[in-house]
């Protein structure tokens, strides 16, 4: 500890270089921290998935609907607690630019399965009593200024749901989240409303079906067995099903976006390497400048290991300062990043991003490790150097 002032003095000696190294490191660590936060958000979506929830869809793909009559048949299987029909409506409000996800659901069952949607009880009651009722997340309400009782129209992008005129909805409830990861940007409305609007135009060849059956099982340990039982139940039917855990279902959507995870990790690696180069550059300059001093220290009898450690500590100090600053920057900026003009495209789908303690610690450790790595070669050089050579060269 008594050598600490010595290290600090060295860092201050060429303060421009120290500052620019720390700044360079901080921006890079900020970038790594942001990328890791996005990766963490992706991980969270699958990890937060509830193990007692299953999603049943048409075996070919989500694009096809299943017969509504499958619901009671799933409900009757042992181990099944609740089943709710849910259809992706793909409604467009005003313009495609104002798109938000909308689902037609059987509310009584659906919200039993998804207790994370926090709907005030009186609003939920009003919603149940209004055929055109809609429940919207707080984010949608804030973005478009919706209040309870507001009437709005939406048209679906999906051909069978285009019934010749837009669907009219009344905002009956605005929900909050019971947990941090709850998506507050979704709209729900009555499946019955969708069904009857389509039935009214039956002659055109449209028919209503179930997009997914969202299933809650009584015992999460048996979820896999129940999933198998559901699919086996329809094995010999005209429409076969595919049932998977909520986590696997979400993971499928993430796989669709391509190799995002590998891409972000690759960028992170390149950034880490850049930090290494910048910091190694600084440290090798610092040691070269100080050859005489190192020789003098050694002459005075300071052991080579101590001389080496002093260089290393200096490098670690750079890592700590740069890393700390970078993580702080990320913590301050990451939540607002999606508001920047072009970043919304990338980060828009992850509302409420924040640097988790895990990611913060991870990136900080990366910074410190990079500091050590950058200091290693110059430090070993200082350790090995011969006093006479160094004194002569200076």
């Amino acid at each position, binding site marked *: 500890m008594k050598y600490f002032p010595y290290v600090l003095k060295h860092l201050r000696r060429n303060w*421009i*270089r120290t500052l*620019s*190294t720390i*700044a*360079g*490191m901080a*921006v*890079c660590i*900020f*970038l790594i921290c942001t990328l890791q936060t996005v990766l963490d958000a992706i991980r969270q979506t699958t990890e937060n998935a509830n193990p007692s929830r299953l999603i049943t869809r048409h075996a*070919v*793909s*989500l*694009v*096809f609907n299943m017969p509504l009559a499958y619901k009671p048949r799933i409900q009757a299987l042992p181990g099944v607690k609740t089943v709710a029909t849910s259809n992706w409506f*793909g409604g467009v409000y005003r313009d*495609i630019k104002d798109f938000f996800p909308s689902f037609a659901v059987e509310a009584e069952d659906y919200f039993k399965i998804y207790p994370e949607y926090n709907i005030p009880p009186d609003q939920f009651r009003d919603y149940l009593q209004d055929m055109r009722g809609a429940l919207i997340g707080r984010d949608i309400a804030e973005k478009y200024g919706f209040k309870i009782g507001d009437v709005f129209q939406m*048209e679906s*992008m*999906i*051909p069978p749901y285009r019934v010749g005129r837009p669907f009219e909805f009344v905002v009956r409830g605005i929900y909050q989240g019971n947990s941090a990861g709850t998506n507050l940007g979704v709209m729900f409305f009555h499946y019955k409303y969708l069904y009857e609007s389509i039935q009214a135009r039956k002659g055109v*060849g449209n028919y209503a079906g179930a997009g997914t059956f969202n299933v809650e099982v009584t015992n999460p340990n048996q979820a896999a067995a129940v999933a198998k039982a559901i699919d086996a139940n329809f094995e010999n039917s*005209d429409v*076969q099903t*595919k049932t998977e855990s909520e986590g696997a279902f979400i*993971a*499928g959507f993430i*796989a*669709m*976006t*391509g*190799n995002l995870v590998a*891409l972000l990790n690759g*960028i992170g690696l*390149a*950034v880490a*390497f*850049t*930090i290494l*180069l*910048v910091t*190694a*550059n*600084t440290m*090798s*300059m610092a040691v070269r400048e100080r050859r005489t001093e190192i020789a003098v220290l050694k002459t005075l009898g300071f052991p080579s290991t101590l001389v080496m450690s002093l260089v290393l500590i200096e490098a670690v100090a750079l890592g700590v300062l740069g890393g700390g600053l970078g993580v702080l920057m990320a913590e301050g900026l990451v939540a607002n990043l999606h508001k920047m003009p*072009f*970043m919304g*495209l*990338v980060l828009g789908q992850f509302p409420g991003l924040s640097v988790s303690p895990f990611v913060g610690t991870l990136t900080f450790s990366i910074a410190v490790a990079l500091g050590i790595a950058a200091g290693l070669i110059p430090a070993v050089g200082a350790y090995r150097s011969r006093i006479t050579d160094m004194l002569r060269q200076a």
Partner: protein
Amino acid sequence: MALPLSYNVRSLYVRGRVTLLAIGGIALVVAVLIVLVAMAMGFRIALAATGSTDNAIVTQRGSTSELTSGMTRENANVLAVDARVRRDANGRPLASPEMVVVAALTRRDGPQVNVVIRGVTPQAFAVRRGVRIVEGRTFQPGLYEVIVGRKMFDRFEGMGLGRALQLQRRSWTIVGVFEANGSGFESEIWGDVDVMTPAFNRIGYQSITLTMQDPSAIRAFNDELQRNPRMQVQAIQERQYYEDQSGAVSGALLALAGFVAIVMGIGAVFGAMNTMYAIVAARTREIGTLRALGFSRIAILTAFVIESTFLAIVGGALGCVLALPANGISSAAGGANFAEVAFAFRITTLAIVAGMVLAALMGIAGGLLPASRAARVPITAALREA
């Protein structure tokens, strides 16, 4: 009077190791930028290649993709016999009515992803002239046979000539593999539309693609269709249609590229700055001498900015070389039809130019402060020092 360029080049050479580290930092930034831009471009090029400028694709009015479009067979027939549609040697119109659905299939690396299944007529190969069978043969109309795009064939489970695909309780025999100039079609499965439509419980078509006699008339054709009360359809040039579909993904990738390049670039500029400061400090005496010889402050400043720009351009060139292996890497991303489109990274001139411009900017930014310090060196102090 300006200093000769060789002065700068040689002085970088003298301080080799520090210079190399700074060059390495800049090279990495440029490489990352080029790879990301190459990815965005690759996706855009793959989709653009899907469409032809001669063709018009007609979909349901207001639909954003074929999957969200629907039209009756009657409407498709009326469109096919339009006088503006080109005809083949036998007098049949070059019109390809198509059914589009997606199926979740298992990729070799594990996940299930959506794949476009397209029902077509034999005329589709006359309308899409870039599509050709490279293995096996084409499907026979009326049979449960399919042909598979090259990229799809290479990347999914269960692919092989003669093997069968189980979909909708039917067995579809894979009889051929087709290529389509690396375009989005290569990520699809094609079969007979009249077999597929009932098999997948569809009614009518999703789209009809028409080869026009006069491609410049597509806009007028669309204007007319938009006013036509008989059918709810819209027409757009096929290439434009697919380019529009690449917008969201390539836009997001370019945004990511911009963000990463700027932030990383700032980091690397600090590295270059350190190097330049070290170079200036080591040459204080030399600078003093130059000033004493009569070189102006401006000449010194310019010389050092040039030196750092040169360093950065060398770094940029190295970055281009580092990025080169990325050319041709194949990847996949979500396309418009709620399905995956495979594409190859393309290092375009634009990517290289963007990388080099970024490198030059980093060089100038990193050199400015150290150069101004060099320019302010007081002659007497500099000569006395060391």
